[in-house]
Protein backbone atom coordinates (compact mmCIF):
# COMPACT_ATOMS: atom_id res chain seq x y z
CA UNK A 1 0.00 0.00 0.00
CA UNK A 2 1.25 3.45 -0.81
CA UNK A 3 1.28 6.22 1.77
CA UNK A 4 -1.53 7.88 -0.14
CA UNK A 5 -3.74 4.87 0.48
CA UNK A 6 -3.03 4.99 4.20
CA UNK A 7 -4.04 8.60 4.59
CA UNK A 8 -7.09 8.27 2.36
CA UNK A 9 -10.44 7.79 4.03
CA UNK A 10 -11.55 5.92 0.92
CA UNK A 11 -9.11 4.21 -1.45
CA UNK A 12 -10.32 2.30 -4.49
CA UNK A 13 -8.00 0.43 -6.87
CA UNK A 14 -8.97 -1.27 -10.11
CA UNK A 15 -12.50 -2.01 -8.98
CA UNK A 16 -14.59 -4.08 -11.37
CA UNK A 17 -18.15 -5.32 -11.17
CA UNK A 18 -20.39 -6.99 -13.73
CA UNK A 19 -24.00 -8.08 -13.59
CA UNK A 20 -24.18 -10.86 -16.13
CA UNK A 21 -22.89 -9.38 -19.39
CA UNK A 22 -23.19 -5.81 -18.21
CA UNK A 23 -19.84 -4.40 -17.07
CA UNK A 24 -20.95 -1.72 -14.64
CA UNK A 25 -17.52 -0.90 -13.21
CA UNK A 26 -14.47 -1.40 -15.45
CA UNK A 27 -11.51 -0.60 -13.26
CA UNK A 28 -12.28 2.33 -10.98
CA UNK A 29 -9.47 4.14 -9.08
CA UNK A 30 -10.40 6.71 -6.49
CA UNK A 31 -8.86 8.41 -3.46
CA UNK A 32 -10.83 10.48 -1.02
CA UNK A 33 -8.69 12.43 1.44
CA UNK A 34 -9.64 12.42 5.11
CA UNK A 35 -11.93 15.27 6.08
CA UNK A 36 -12.78 16.24 2.50
CA UNK A 37 -16.02 16.34 0.58
CA UNK A 38 -15.76 14.30 -2.60
CA UNK A 39 -18.44 14.38 -5.27
CA UNK A 40 -18.88 11.53 -7.70
CA UNK A 41 -20.66 12.82 -10.76
CA UNK A 42 -22.28 10.66 -13.34
CA UNK A 43 -25.41 10.18 -15.35
CA UNK A 44 -27.91 7.44 -14.61
CA UNK A 45 -26.36 4.05 -15.13
CA UNK A 46 -22.78 5.30 -14.85
CA UNK A 47 -22.16 2.93 -11.94
CA UNK A 48 -22.30 5.40 -9.04
CA UNK A 49 -24.71 3.38 -6.94
CA UNK A 50 -22.86 0.14 -7.64
CA UNK A 51 -19.63 1.73 -6.43
CA UNK A 52 -21.34 3.04 -3.30
CA UNK A 53 -22.87 -0.38 -2.61
CA UNK A 54 -19.46 -2.02 -2.83
CA UNK A 55 -18.00 0.58 -0.44
CA UNK A 56 -20.98 -0.02 1.84
CA UNK A 57 -20.32 -3.81 1.91
CA UNK A 58 -23.70 -4.52 0.27
CA UNK A 59 -22.12 -5.90 -2.89
CA UNK A 60 -18.90 -7.78 -3.55
CA UNK A 61 -16.57 -6.58 -6.28
CA UNK A 62 -15.39 -8.96 -9.02
CA UNK A 63 -11.86 -7.55 -9.01
CA UNK A 64 -9.83 -4.80 -7.43
CA UNK A 65 -9.73 -3.51 -3.85
CA UNK A 66 -11.60 -0.91 -1.86
CA UNK A 67 -10.68 0.41 1.57
CA UNK A 68 -12.83 2.54 3.84
CA UNK A 69 -11.13 4.18 6.82
CA UNK A 70 -8.17 1.87 6.16
CA UNK A 71 -10.18 -1.38 6.28
CA UNK A 72 -10.64 -3.62 3.26
CA UNK A 73 -14.33 -4.03 2.37
CA UNK A 74 -13.82 -7.60 1.21
CA UNK A 75 -11.71 -8.98 4.04
CA UNK A 76 -12.75 -6.79 6.97
CA UNK A 77 -16.39 -5.81 6.35
CA UNK A 78 -17.28 -5.71 10.05
CA UNK A 79 -14.66 -3.02 10.76
CA UNK A 80 -15.75 -1.13 7.65
CA UNK A 81 -19.35 -1.10 8.89
CA UNK A 82 -18.22 0.49 12.13
CA UNK A 83 -16.49 3.26 10.21
CA UNK A 84 -19.08 4.60 7.79
CA UNK A 85 -22.72 5.30 7.37
CA UNK A 86 -24.85 5.25 4.25
CA UNK A 87 -27.75 7.43 3.28
CA UNK A 88 -29.34 5.84 0.29
CA UNK A 89 -31.04 7.18 -2.75
CA UNK A 90 -34.43 6.49 -1.24
CA UNK A 91 -34.90 7.70 2.30
CA UNK A 92 -34.75 4.44 4.22
CA UNK A 93 -36.66 5.34 7.34
CA UNK A 94 -39.12 3.06 9.10
CA UNK A 95 -42.48 4.62 8.28
CA UNK A 96 -44.37 2.84 11.03
CA UNK A 97 -42.02 3.97 13.78
CA UNK A 98 -41.93 7.59 14.96
CA UNK A 99 -38.95 9.77 14.11
CA UNK A 100 -37.67 9.41 17.65
CA UNK A 101 -38.06 5.62 17.58
CA UNK A 102 -36.17 5.46 14.29
CA UNK A 103 -33.24 7.34 15.81
CA UNK A 104 -33.30 5.37 19.07
CA UNK A 105 -33.33 2.08 17.14
CA UNK A 106 -30.23 3.04 15.17
CA UNK A 107 -28.51 4.21 18.38
CA UNK A 108 -29.22 0.83 19.98
CA UNK A 109 -27.94 -0.99 16.90
CA UNK A 110 -24.76 1.08 17.06
CA UNK A 111 -24.49 -0.04 20.68
CA UNK A 112 -24.50 3.44 22.18
CA UNK A 113 -25.48 3.98 25.80
CA UNK A 114 -28.66 6.01 26.40
CA UNK A 115 -30.27 5.71 22.96
CA UNK A 116 -33.15 7.96 23.99
CA UNK A 117 -30.87 10.91 24.75
CA UNK A 118 -29.02 10.43 21.46
CA UNK A 119 -32.37 10.50 19.65
CA UNK A 120 -33.54 13.66 21.41
CA UNK A 121 -30.28 15.44 20.68
CA UNK A 122 -30.51 14.65 16.95
CA UNK A 123 -34.18 15.60 16.75
CA UNK A 124 -33.14 18.96 18.12
CA UNK A 125 -30.16 19.36 15.76
CA UNK A 126 -32.32 18.56 12.73
CA UNK A 127 -35.33 20.67 13.79
CA UNK A 128 -37.50 17.60 14.15
CA UNK A 129 -38.29 17.84 17.86
CA UNK A 130 -41.95 18.66 17.31
CA UNK A 131 -42.36 15.92 14.73
CA UNK A 132 -40.39 13.39 16.79
CA UNK A 133 -43.49 11.73 18.21
CA UNK A 134 -45.20 11.30 14.85
CA UNK A 135 -44.84 8.31 12.56
CA UNK A 136 -42.17 8.91 9.93
CA UNK A 137 -44.70 7.88 7.27
CA UNK A 138 -46.47 11.21 7.83
CA UNK A 139 -43.32 13.30 7.17
CA UNK A 140 -42.75 15.45 4.09
CA UNK A 141 -39.94 14.54 1.70
CA UNK A 142 -37.56 17.07 3.25
CA UNK A 143 -38.27 15.96 6.79
CA UNK A 144 -37.77 12.31 5.84
CA UNK A 145 -34.42 13.09 4.28
CA UNK A 146 -33.39 15.08 7.38
CA UNK A 147 -34.39 12.12 9.55
CA UNK A 148 -32.56 9.78 7.18
CA UNK A 149 -29.36 11.81 7.42
CA UNK A 150 -29.75 12.19 11.19
CA UNK A 151 -30.01 8.40 11.46
CA UNK A 152 -26.80 7.99 9.52
CA UNK A 153 -24.89 10.39 11.77
CA UNK A 154 -25.53 8.40 14.95
CA UNK A 155 -22.27 7.21 16.44
CA UNK A 156 -20.27 9.84 14.51
CA UNK A 157 -18.94 7.58 11.75
CA UNK A 158 -15.75 9.07 10.26
CA UNK A 159 -16.90 8.38 6.69
CA UNK A 160 -20.34 9.35 5.39
CA UNK A 161 -21.60 7.98 2.06
CA UNK A 162 -24.48 9.94 0.56
CA UNK A 163 -26.00 8.29 -2.50
CA UNK A 164 -27.87 10.99 -4.43
CA UNK A 165 -28.96 12.74 -1.24
CA UNK A 166 -31.05 15.40 -2.98
CA UNK A 167 -32.72 13.38 -5.72
CA UNK A 168 -36.44 14.00 -5.64
CA UNK A 169 -36.28 16.86 -3.14
CA UNK A 170 -37.75 20.32 -3.62
CA UNK A 171 -35.34 23.27 -3.69
CA UNK A 172 -35.76 24.12 0.00
CA UNK A 173 -35.19 20.58 1.17
CA UNK A 174 -32.15 20.43 -1.10
CA UNK A 175 -30.71 23.55 0.52
CA UNK A 176 -31.27 21.96 3.93
CA UNK A 177 -29.35 18.86 2.86
CA UNK A 178 -26.54 21.02 1.49
CA UNK A 179 -26.33 22.90 4.79
CA UNK A 180 -26.14 19.56 6.61
CA UNK A 181 -23.32 18.32 4.38
CA UNK A 182 -21.41 21.56 5.00
CA UNK A 183 -21.86 21.14 8.76
CA UNK A 184 -20.64 17.53 8.49
CA UNK A 185 -17.55 18.58 6.58
CA UNK A 186 -16.72 21.35 9.04
CA UNK A 187 -17.04 18.74 11.81
CA UNK A 188 -14.20 16.76 10.23
CA UNK A 189 -16.12 13.90 8.60
CA UNK A 190 -15.14 12.58 5.20
CA UNK A 191 -18.08 12.78 2.81
CA UNK A 192 -18.46 10.92 -0.46
CA UNK A 193 -21.57 11.99 -2.27
CA UNK A 194 -22.91 10.89 -5.60
CA UNK A 195 -25.03 13.23 -7.63
CA UNK A 196 -26.29 13.96 -11.10
CA UNK A 197 -26.61 17.67 -10.28
CA UNK A 198 -23.56 19.60 -11.36
CA UNK A 199 -24.28 22.61 -9.19
CA UNK A 200 -24.45 20.34 -6.16
CA UNK A 201 -20.93 19.09 -6.80
CA UNK A 202 -19.76 22.64 -7.50
CA UNK A 203 -21.24 23.98 -4.29
CA UNK A 204 -20.18 21.22 -1.86
CA UNK A 205 -17.17 19.33 -3.09
CA UNK A 206 -13.47 19.86 -2.48
CA UNK A 207 -12.79 17.38 -5.22
CA UNK A 208 -14.89 15.99 -8.03
CA UNK A 209 -14.63 12.81 -10.06
CA UNK A 210 -16.66 12.01 -13.13
CA UNK A 211 -17.71 8.40 -13.49
CA UNK A 212 -18.67 7.51 -17.02
CA UNK A 213 -19.47 4.04 -18.33
CA UNK A 214 -17.77 2.35 -15.40
CA UNK A 215 -14.54 4.38 -15.41
CA UNK A 216 -13.36 7.55 -13.71
CA UNK A 217 -12.67 9.78 -16.68
CA UNK A 218 -11.78 12.94 -14.75
CA UNK A 219 -10.72 13.57 -11.16
CA UNK A 220 -9.65 16.85 -9.62
CA UNK A 221 -10.63 20.08 -7.90
CA UNK A 222 -13.20 22.26 -9.57
CA UNK A 223 -10.42 24.58 -10.77
CA UNK A 224 -8.47 21.65 -12.22
CA UNK A 225 -11.54 20.35 -14.03
CA UNK A 226 -12.26 23.80 -15.40
CA UNK A 227 -8.70 24.00 -16.68
CA UNK A 228 -9.41 20.97 -18.85
CA UNK A 229 -11.58 23.15 -21.05
CA UNK A 230 -10.35 25.97 -23.31
CA UNK A 231 -9.74 29.21 -21.38
CA UNK A 232 -12.80 31.25 -20.56
CA UNK A 233 -13.89 33.91 -23.02
CA UNK A 234 -15.46 37.10 -21.79
CA UNK A 235 -19.05 37.44 -22.92
CA UNK A 236 -21.69 39.89 -21.81
CA UNK A 237 -24.90 38.12 -20.99
CA UNK A 238 -27.94 39.72 -19.42
CA UNK A 239 -28.41 37.96 -16.09
CA UNK A 240 -31.94 36.67 -15.76
CA UNK A 241 -33.00 35.25 -12.40
CA UNK A 242 -33.26 31.48 -12.54
CA UNK A 243 -36.62 29.98 -11.77
CA UNK A 244 -35.09 28.53 -8.61
CA UNK A 245 -34.06 32.00 -7.45
CA UNK A 246 -37.55 33.28 -8.18
CA UNK A 247 -39.13 30.37 -6.34
CA UNK A 248 -36.93 30.80 -3.30
CA UNK A 249 -37.38 34.58 -3.27
CA UNK A 250 -41.15 34.22 -3.28
CA UNK A 251 -41.48 31.47 -0.70
CA UNK A 252 -38.52 32.61 1.44
CA UNK A 253 -35.43 30.42 1.36
CA UNK A 254 -34.55 30.27 5.03
CA UNK A 255 -36.06 27.03 6.30
CA UNK A 256 -33.82 27.05 9.40
CA UNK A 257 -35.85 29.77 11.05
CA UNK A 258 -39.17 28.10 10.65
CA UNK A 259 -40.70 25.34 12.73
CA UNK A 260 -39.99 21.98 11.15
CA UNK A 261 -43.62 20.99 10.64
CA UNK A 262 -44.60 24.26 9.08
CA UNK A 263 -42.03 24.26 6.28
CA UNK A 264 -44.08 22.12 3.97
CA UNK A 265 -47.62 22.16 5.26
CA UNK A 266 -48.11 25.91 5.40
CA UNK A 267 -46.37 26.49 2.08
CA UNK A 268 -48.65 24.12 0.27
CA UNK A 269 -51.78 25.92 1.34
Amino acid at each position, binding site marked *: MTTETRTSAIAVRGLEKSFGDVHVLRGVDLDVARGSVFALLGSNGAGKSTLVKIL*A*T*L*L*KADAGTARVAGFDVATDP*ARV*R*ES*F*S*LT*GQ*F*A*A*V*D*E*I*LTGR*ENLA*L*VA*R*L*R*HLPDAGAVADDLLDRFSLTEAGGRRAGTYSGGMRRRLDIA*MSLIGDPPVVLLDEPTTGLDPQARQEVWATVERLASGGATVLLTTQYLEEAERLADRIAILHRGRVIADGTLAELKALLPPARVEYVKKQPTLEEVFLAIVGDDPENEPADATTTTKEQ
Partner: protein
Amino acid sequence: MTTHSAGDTAALTGRSLRHVLRSPDTIITTAVMPVAMLLLFVYVFGGAIEADTGSESYVSYLLPGILLITVVSGISYTAFRLFVDVSAGIFERFQTMPVARSSVLWAHVLTSLVANAVALIVVIAVALLMGFRSGASPLAWLGVIGILGLFTLALTWLAVIPGLTAKSVDGASGFAYPLLFLPFLSSAFVPTDTMPAPVAAFAEHQPVTSIVDVLRSLLAEQPVGDELWVALAWCVGLLAVAYWGAMAVFRRRSA
Protein backbone atom coordinates in the same frame (compact mmCIF):
# COMPACT_ATOMS: atom_id res chain seq x y z
CA MET B 1 -19.45 -8.47 17.02
CA THR B 2 -21.09 -11.77 17.98
CA THR B 3 -21.31 -10.49 21.55
CA HIS B 4 -23.85 -8.00 20.26
CA SER B 5 -25.95 -10.37 18.20
CA ALA B 6 -28.48 -11.11 20.97
CA GLY B 7 -28.90 -7.41 21.70
CA ASP B 8 -29.19 -6.56 18.00
CA THR B 9 -31.79 -9.27 17.49
CA ALA B 10 -33.71 -8.02 20.53
CA ALA B 11 -33.70 -4.42 19.27
CA LEU B 12 -34.83 -5.45 15.80
CA THR B 13 -37.46 -7.86 17.14
CA GLY B 14 -38.82 -5.05 19.31
CA ARG B 15 -39.09 -2.98 16.17
CA SER B 16 -41.06 -5.50 14.12
CA LEU B 17 -43.27 -6.43 17.09
CA ARG B 18 -44.11 -2.75 17.25
CA HIS B 19 -45.14 -2.98 13.60
CA VAL B 20 -47.50 -5.82 14.50
CA LEU B 21 -48.88 -3.93 17.51
CA ARG B 22 -49.53 -0.86 15.34
CA SER B 23 -51.37 -2.89 12.74
CA PRO B 24 -53.28 -5.40 14.89
CA ASP B 25 -55.43 -6.04 11.82
CA THR B 26 -52.69 -8.40 10.62
CA ILE B 27 -53.41 -10.68 13.59
CA ILE B 28 -57.18 -10.35 13.14
CA THR B 29 -57.02 -11.20 9.44
CA THR B 30 -54.66 -14.08 10.22
CA ALA B 31 -57.32 -15.49 12.56
CA VAL B 32 -60.41 -14.55 10.52
CA MET B 33 -60.06 -17.11 7.74
CA PRO B 34 -59.37 -20.09 10.02
CA VAL B 35 -62.27 -19.03 12.26
CA ALA B 36 -64.55 -18.72 9.22
CA MET B 37 -63.52 -22.22 8.11
CA LEU B 38 -64.14 -23.51 11.60
CA LEU B 39 -67.67 -22.04 11.58
CA LEU B 40 -68.36 -23.24 8.04
CA PHE B 41 -67.19 -26.79 8.58
CA VAL B 42 -68.73 -27.23 12.02
CA TYR B 43 -72.13 -25.59 11.44
CA VAL B 44 -72.67 -26.17 7.70
CA PHE B 45 -70.84 -29.36 6.72
CA GLY B 46 -70.29 -30.73 10.19
CA GLY B 47 -73.72 -32.34 10.63
CA ALA B 48 -73.18 -34.44 7.54
CA ILE B 49 -69.57 -35.30 8.37
CA GLU B 50 -69.88 -36.03 12.08
CA ALA B 51 -70.98 -39.62 11.71
CA ASP B 52 -67.59 -40.65 10.32
CA THR B 53 -65.29 -39.04 12.89
CA GLY B 54 -66.04 -41.47 15.69
CA SER B 55 -66.77 -40.42 19.23
CA GLU B 56 -65.08 -37.00 19.02
CA SER B 57 -67.12 -33.88 18.43
CA TYR B 58 -66.40 -32.55 14.95
CA VAL B 59 -64.98 -29.24 16.23
CA SER B 60 -62.36 -31.19 18.20
CA TYR B 61 -61.65 -33.34 15.15
CA LEU B 62 -61.28 -30.24 12.97
CA LEU B 63 -59.26 -27.97 15.25
CA PRO B 64 -55.73 -29.34 14.59
CA GLY B 65 -56.08 -28.79 10.82
CA ILE B 66 -57.52 -25.32 11.40
CA LEU B 67 -54.52 -24.48 13.60
CA LEU B 68 -52.15 -25.39 10.76
CA ILE B 69 -54.19 -23.21 8.37
CA THR B 70 -53.83 -20.37 10.88
CA VAL B 71 -50.05 -20.71 10.75
CA VAL B 72 -50.04 -20.78 6.95
CA SER B 73 -52.07 -17.57 6.75
CA GLY B 74 -49.90 -16.01 9.49
CA ILE B 75 -46.57 -16.57 7.80
CA SER B 76 -47.67 -14.76 4.63
CA TYR B 77 -47.48 -11.58 6.75
CA THR B 78 -43.90 -12.43 7.62
CA ALA B 79 -43.07 -12.56 3.92
CA PHE B 80 -44.98 -9.30 3.49
CA ARG B 81 -43.15 -7.48 6.32
CA LEU B 82 -39.77 -8.66 5.06
CA PHE B 83 -40.63 -7.63 1.50
CA VAL B 84 -41.59 -4.14 2.68
CA ASP B 85 -38.28 -3.82 4.56
CA VAL B 86 -36.32 -4.87 1.49
CA SER B 87 -38.19 -2.66 -0.98
CA ALA B 88 -38.12 0.38 1.35
CA GLY B 89 -34.34 0.13 1.79
CA ILE B 90 -34.49 -0.36 5.57
CA PHE B 91 -33.10 -3.86 5.13
CA GLU B 92 -30.03 -2.49 3.33
CA ARG B 93 -29.59 0.20 5.95
CA PHE B 94 -29.39 -2.48 8.65
CA GLN B 95 -27.00 -4.51 6.50
CA THR B 96 -24.58 -1.57 6.30
CA MET B 97 -24.53 -1.13 10.05
CA PRO B 98 -22.30 -2.96 12.54
CA VAL B 99 -25.16 -5.33 13.29
CA ALA B 100 -24.82 -9.11 13.45
CA ARG B 101 -25.61 -10.23 9.91
CA SER B 102 -28.48 -12.62 10.41
CA SER B 103 -30.17 -10.75 13.25
CA VAL B 104 -32.28 -8.87 10.72
CA LEU B 105 -33.79 -12.18 9.60
CA TRP B 106 -34.03 -13.64 13.10
CA ALA B 107 -35.97 -10.59 14.24
CA HIS B 108 -38.62 -11.29 11.60
CA VAL B 109 -38.65 -14.98 12.48
CA LEU B 110 -39.13 -14.33 16.21
CA THR B 111 -41.85 -11.79 15.45
CA SER B 112 -43.58 -14.40 13.31
CA LEU B 113 -43.51 -16.88 16.21
CA VAL B 114 -45.09 -14.32 18.57
CA ALA B 115 -47.72 -13.09 16.08
CA ASN B 116 -48.70 -16.65 15.14
CA ALA B 117 -48.93 -17.66 18.81
CA VAL B 118 -51.41 -14.83 19.41
CA ALA B 119 -53.46 -15.79 16.34
CA LEU B 120 -53.46 -19.47 17.43
CA ILE B 121 -54.70 -18.49 20.89
CA VAL B 122 -57.54 -16.49 19.30
CA VAL B 123 -58.55 -19.47 17.15
CA ILE B 124 -58.41 -21.89 20.10
CA ALA B 125 -60.54 -19.47 22.14
CA VAL B 126 -63.18 -19.44 19.40
CA ALA B 127 -63.05 -23.24 19.23
CA LEU B 128 -63.62 -23.40 23.00
CA LEU B 129 -66.73 -21.24 22.58
CA MET B 130 -67.90 -23.67 19.88
CA GLY B 131 -67.62 -26.66 22.17
CA PHE B 132 -64.01 -27.80 21.77
CA ARG B 133 -62.91 -29.57 24.93
CA SER B 134 -59.68 -31.34 25.76
CA GLY B 135 -58.61 -33.12 28.91
CA ALA B 136 -55.03 -33.28 27.67
CA SER B 137 -52.33 -33.29 30.32
CA PRO B 138 -49.89 -30.39 30.62
CA LEU B 139 -47.28 -32.62 29.03
CA ALA B 140 -49.55 -33.30 26.03
CA TRP B 141 -50.24 -29.54 25.70
CA LEU B 142 -46.50 -28.96 25.81
CA GLY B 143 -46.23 -31.42 22.93
CA VAL B 144 -48.94 -29.54 21.01
CA ILE B 145 -47.16 -26.22 21.60
CA GLY B 146 -43.83 -27.75 20.62
CA ILE B 147 -45.10 -29.19 17.34
CA LEU B 148 -46.99 -26.02 16.42
CA GLY B 149 -43.89 -23.97 17.28
CA LEU B 150 -41.66 -26.17 15.13
CA PHE B 151 -44.18 -26.09 12.25
CA THR B 152 -44.40 -22.26 12.50
CA LEU B 153 -40.61 -21.95 12.59
CA ALA B 154 -40.21 -24.15 9.50
CA LEU B 155 -42.87 -22.30 7.50
CA THR B 156 -41.53 -18.92 8.65
CA TRP B 157 -38.09 -19.69 7.24
CA LEU B 158 -39.85 -20.80 4.07
CA ALA B 159 -41.63 -17.40 4.03
CA VAL B 160 -38.27 -15.63 4.29
CA ILE B 161 -37.44 -16.81 0.75
CA PRO B 162 -40.30 -14.98 -1.05
CA GLY B 163 -39.86 -12.10 1.41
CA LEU B 164 -36.31 -11.58 0.14
CA THR B 165 -36.86 -12.40 -3.52
CA ALA B 166 -40.38 -11.28 -4.45
CA LYS B 167 -40.74 -8.53 -7.03
CA SER B 168 -44.16 -7.40 -5.81
CA VAL B 169 -46.28 -7.42 -2.66
CA ASP B 170 -48.60 -9.97 -4.25
CA GLY B 171 -45.71 -12.29 -4.95
CA ALA B 172 -44.46 -11.97 -1.39
CA SER B 173 -47.72 -12.82 0.33
CA GLY B 174 -49.30 -14.96 -2.38
CA PHE B 175 -46.86 -17.86 -2.09
CA ALA B 176 -48.79 -19.22 0.89
CA TYR B 177 -52.04 -19.86 -1.02
CA PRO B 178 -50.99 -23.21 -2.50
CA LEU B 179 -50.00 -24.30 1.01
CA LEU B 180 -53.56 -23.61 2.13
CA PHE B 181 -54.78 -26.50 -0.03
CA LEU B 182 -52.58 -29.10 1.65
CA PRO B 183 -54.92 -29.46 4.65
CA PHE B 184 -57.82 -30.23 2.29
CA LEU B 185 -55.82 -33.13 0.83
CA SER B 186 -55.15 -34.53 4.27
CA SER B 187 -56.94 -35.98 7.27
CA ALA B 188 -57.61 -32.45 8.55
CA PHE B 189 -61.28 -32.29 7.54
CA VAL B 190 -62.28 -35.91 6.92
CA PRO B 191 -60.58 -39.26 7.52
CA THR B 192 -58.49 -40.37 4.54
CA ASP B 193 -60.08 -43.84 4.18
CA THR B 194 -63.10 -42.51 2.23
CA MET B 195 -60.85 -40.87 -0.40
CA PRO B 196 -60.09 -42.52 -3.78
CA ALA B 197 -56.86 -44.53 -3.60
CA PRO B 198 -54.48 -42.07 -5.34
CA VAL B 199 -55.75 -39.12 -3.28
CA ALA B 200 -55.59 -41.15 -0.09
CA ALA B 201 -52.04 -42.21 -0.96
CA PHE B 202 -51.03 -38.56 -1.33
CA ALA B 203 -52.92 -37.53 1.80
CA GLU B 204 -51.34 -40.23 3.94
CA HIS B 205 -47.82 -39.33 2.84
CA GLN B 206 -47.84 -35.58 3.20
CA PRO B 207 -46.78 -33.65 6.31
CA VAL B 208 -50.17 -32.13 7.19
CA THR B 209 -51.77 -35.54 7.81
CA SER B 210 -49.12 -36.78 10.21
CA ILE B 211 -48.89 -33.45 12.04
CA VAL B 212 -52.70 -33.19 12.30
CA ASP B 213 -52.99 -36.80 13.49
CA VAL B 214 -50.41 -36.26 16.21
CA LEU B 215 -52.01 -33.01 17.40
CA ARG B 216 -55.42 -34.70 17.41
CA SER B 217 -54.14 -37.67 19.42
CA LEU B 218 -52.42 -35.41 21.94
CA LEU B 219 -55.55 -33.28 22.43
CA ALA B 220 -57.83 -36.34 22.62
CA GLU B 221 -55.57 -38.07 25.18
CA GLN B 222 -54.85 -40.91 22.76
CA PRO B 223 -51.45 -42.60 22.41
CA VAL B 224 -49.50 -40.96 19.57
CA GLY B 225 -47.26 -43.89 18.67
CA ASP B 226 -44.78 -43.72 15.81
CA GLU B 227 -46.76 -41.02 14.04
CA LEU B 228 -45.05 -38.56 16.40
CA TRP B 229 -41.65 -39.34 14.87
CA VAL B 230 -43.02 -39.01 11.36
CA ALA B 231 -44.51 -35.62 12.20
CA LEU B 232 -41.30 -34.45 13.89
CA ALA B 233 -39.24 -35.67 10.94
CA TRP B 234 -41.45 -33.68 8.55
CA CYS B 235 -41.15 -30.53 10.68
CA VAL B 236 -37.40 -30.78 11.23
CA GLY B 237 -36.76 -31.75 7.59
CA LEU B 238 -38.88 -28.86 6.32
CA LEU B 239 -37.14 -26.51 8.75
CA ALA B 240 -33.68 -27.63 7.62
CA VAL B 241 -34.51 -27.22 3.92
CA ALA B 242 -36.28 -23.88 4.41
CA TYR B 243 -33.48 -22.49 6.60
CA TRP B 244 -30.82 -23.61 4.14
CA GLY B 245 -32.75 -22.08 1.23
CA ALA B 246 -33.38 -18.83 3.06
CA MET B 247 -29.73 -18.44 4.06
CA ALA B 248 -28.61 -19.22 0.50
CA VAL B 249 -30.90 -16.48 -0.84
CA PHE B 250 -29.73 -14.14 1.93
CA ARG B 251 -26.05 -14.68 1.10
CA ARG B 252 -26.60 -14.40 -2.64
CA ARG B 253 -28.02 -10.91 -2.16
CA SER B 254 -24.52 -9.59 -1.48
CA ALA B 255 -22.63 -11.62 -4.10
